[in-house]
């Protein structure tokens, strides 16, 4: 069954890639096209409307309000003693809402977690690292470009467009990597369905233990100790790093880094604009604080969504029943679906960003 599946994926993959590239081409040229020629809008590519469309619209409206409030609180900073708290609060909310709307971070991180059978806890760590990195990149770009190099807005936009392309290329790479590991490697390594079911079973319980606060490296070692025999079979019952192959070579960690980097390397244009604005008002420190507050907000949203996704998958497995062959099928759909999703998202975004040629 799995060999058939991998054949199928090999046949379908080129088609999917072609489709995604053409969607990207017919769609937006995010990196090169922006109404005033500066400040490329944040976008997460193909949009999802439907039942949640109204909610997202509401989020966009709120976000516009927070952005205006953010601007105002920066201007008020010297006049009022409460302004700093206000600025931090508004920035935080802006981050929360920003992560719900645009920003491909949540899509990449949640899919990555689903596909790699990661725990909620690992997801929270990744979400935190990605959000922090996103803030740091924005700060580094503004410090280097505006303070050191006295670059213009056009030059800064080109620079961030490059980060954007890099980010989308990484998303594509992570997607391809995940798909490869799910389809090809899995096909080679699986001994029997029984073994696999066993694994699924354990995975389903992983989250019951997710709340225990043991350090990550301990975890890691634990995984090692129990997984080196029999590939997927494990009798420990509380594997937090459920894909043992990835532990033999530390792929799990490098893939987590790749996913973090893919999300974190692209600074949000809102953060860049606010930082430059703060700089122009001689309020750079306040601007930096505001960006960190935004990152915290983004982190909260993404980790909440990641928790929701992983929990939903586990609930799904409970319904299906861990010992039935159906659990295997559901897992395959979720994992291969998630991997394809990341790959398509990456290709679509990359196609869109490269549509009008490379930035100068």
């Amino acid at each position: 069954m799995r060999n058939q599946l991998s054949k199928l994926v090999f046949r379908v993959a080129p088609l999917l890639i072609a489709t995604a590239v053409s969607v990207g081409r017919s769609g937006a040229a995010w990196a090169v096209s922006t109404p005033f020629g500066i400040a490329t809008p944040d976008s997460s590519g193909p949009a999802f409307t439907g039942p949640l469309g109204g909610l997202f619209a509401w989020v966009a409206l709120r976000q516009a309000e927070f952005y205006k409030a953010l601007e105002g609180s920066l201007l008020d900073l010297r006049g009022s003693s409460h302004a700093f708290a206000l600025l931090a609060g508004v920035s935080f909310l802006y981050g929360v809402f920003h992560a719900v709307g645009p920003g491909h971070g949540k899509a990449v991180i949640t899919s990555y977690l689903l596909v790699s059978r990661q725990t909620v806890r690992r997801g929270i760590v990744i979400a935190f690292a990605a959000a922090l990195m996103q803030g740091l990149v924005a700060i580094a770009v503004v410090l280097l470009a505006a303070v050191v190099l006295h670059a213009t807005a056009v030059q800064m936009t080109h620079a961030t467009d490059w980060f954007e392309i890099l980010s989308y290329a990484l998303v594509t790479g992570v997607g391809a990597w995940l798909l490869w590991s799910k389809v090809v490697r899995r096909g080679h390594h699986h001994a029997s369905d029984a073994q696999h079911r066993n694994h699924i079973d354990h995975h389903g319980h992983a989250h019951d233990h997710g709340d225990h606060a043991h350090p990550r490296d301990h975890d890691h070692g634990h995984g090692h100790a129990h997984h080196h025999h029999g590939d997927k079979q494990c009798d420990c019952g509380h594997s937090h790093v459920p894909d043992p192959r990835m532990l033999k070579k530390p792929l799990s960690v490098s893939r987590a880094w790749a996913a973090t980097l893919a999300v974190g390397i692209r600074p949000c244009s809102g953060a860049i604009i606010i930082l430059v604005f703060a700089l122009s008002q001689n309020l750079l420190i306040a601007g930096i604080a505001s960006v960190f507050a935004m990152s915290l907000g983004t982190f909260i949203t993404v980790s909440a969504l990641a928790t929701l996704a992983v929990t939903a998958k586990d609930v799904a497995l409970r319904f299906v029943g861990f010992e039935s062959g159906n659990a295997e099928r559901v897992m395959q759909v979720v994992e291969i679906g998630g991997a394809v999703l990341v790959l398509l998202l990456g290709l679509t975004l990359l196609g869109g960003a490269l549509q009008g040629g490379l930035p100068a």
Partner: protein
Amino acid sequence: MVRSEPVRVSRRSTLMPNNLTRFAVGGLVALFALLIPLATALAHPHVFVDAKAELVFDTQGRLTGIRHVWTFDPAFSAFAVQGLDKNHDGKLSADELAPLAKTNVTSLNRYSFFTILTIDGKKMPLKFPDVYFLRWQGNHLTLFYQLPLKQPAAVQQKATLEVYDPEYFVAFTFDKDPVTLFQAPPGCHAEYHPPKPIDAHIMAELAAIPIDQHDLPPALRDAAVGLANIITTECTGS
């Protein structure tokens, strides 16, 4: 460190009576898990423009062009002029701002300047701006530019000017003195109609359209008009 052993048997025993139902419910929940990463994508304004419009008539009373005066919000203004004060005198001269003004109008061209002009029911083609410049005042940057009509046209009854970004990256407001008429024939008067309150669902559909797709599907086009700032100029003739 406390770790409990998995308790799976009790969980699966009573919840669902048969495998098919379980599979169906489980499958649905799994789909929901996949929808979380998918749920996405709204552009949202990073640019707030306080706009004014002027309709320019020639001596024969024909409409020849539209003058836009767009003042940007302080953050976008600060970002836009970053690094442009080449001589570091703390002022932004017309020369220093000229390259940015050119970038602005060139880029806006791809968005048809967010401007639609209809005269007596006919959509009027517009040319690339013949005049454009930026000015810095207080902490605001203002873009001035003039869009000429391809052919000057007399307004028999009604000219309608719509200004909006259907994808909501640029938020336009017309607050003070939204519209003026320059050399208009007697009997013409202009009126400003603010956008209707945004219907969240329609906005979601609009925002789902990629930012540089300018031809809206017909079904959405009518809805999008609700977002527009509309300036009507009615002439009774003389």
